């Protein structure tokens, strides 16, 4: 089973890459760009004995809390994609 984890800086916390990229886009004339947020996408392939997406999703959430994301400054979403 394949999981997609999207991790991003929590809104309101400084995001230097986002700020710099917004500036670059506005310099190119895209004045509508109000904000840019960077994130990271991780794909996880899990070998599961039983096909129990809920239990597996809970495991992935635990992986996010413990290692994949920094819960102090980041939020994440988990999606089953295959």
């Amino acid at each position, binding site marked *: 089973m394949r999981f997609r984890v999207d991790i991003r800086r929590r809104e309101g916390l400084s995001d230097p890459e986002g700020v710099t990229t917004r500036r670059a886009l506005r310099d190119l004339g895209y004045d509508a760009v109000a904000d840019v947020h960077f994130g990271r996408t991780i794909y996880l392939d899990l070998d599961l004995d039983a096909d129990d997406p809920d239990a597996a999703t809970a495991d992935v959430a635990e992986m996010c809390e413990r290692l994949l994301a*920094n819960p*102090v400054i980041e939020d994440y979403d988990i999606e089953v994609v295959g």
Partner: protein
Amino acid sequence: MKVAVAVFPGTNCEHDVTHALAGLGATADLVWHREMSLAGYDGVVIPGGFAHGDYLRTGAIARFSPIMTEIGAMAAAGAPVLGICNGFQVLCEAGLLPGALIANRELAFICRHVHIRVEHADSVLTCDAEPGTVLRIPLNSYEGNWVAPADHVAEVEDGHRVVLRYCDAAGNVDHASSPNGSTNSIAGLVNDAGNVAGLMPHPERASDPALGSADGLALLRSFLAAVPALS
């Protein structure tokens, strides 16, 4: 007066730190990250570098190295624990210090001497320093920009846990001109008990006039003065 200097794969400042601590009369031993026991050591330093290649996030993998369990126990027991640069990042990831260190505001690696001001002397990092003193110490990092949710920042400020702030040569703090965009110009802070400290600048690289500055000695001397066996 025995200090363990933790070495992870990718750590690269361990010899500088042990040299500086030895020069101040301490016994400083390199201890590999897989070591499970720190029995006999009075304090721990996590030096700078790129522990575990800084993969995923700085310090994210290192916090699960076997030695971190014992460092956490020593921190809880009140022993002096110091994280320098990458070591600061590891201590934040481990939850032993608040907040996190993200990319510098200008997205540039900063490698130059900066000025930092000693905020108070009530910590393991500053107990032998004079409050208000301006130190000139090298900064050498890409992810030195300390951030935290607003309530965590308030806790740190209200608890007087900021021990070092970036400033100009005269000691004036100006958040807009801080070198890396760090929240409230924070360069170094401590935990609630004051025995676990982290800072981004490298005091060991300012430990001899031949290096261009010996200002870091005040901080390293403070750390050693805080080791119970020494005091």
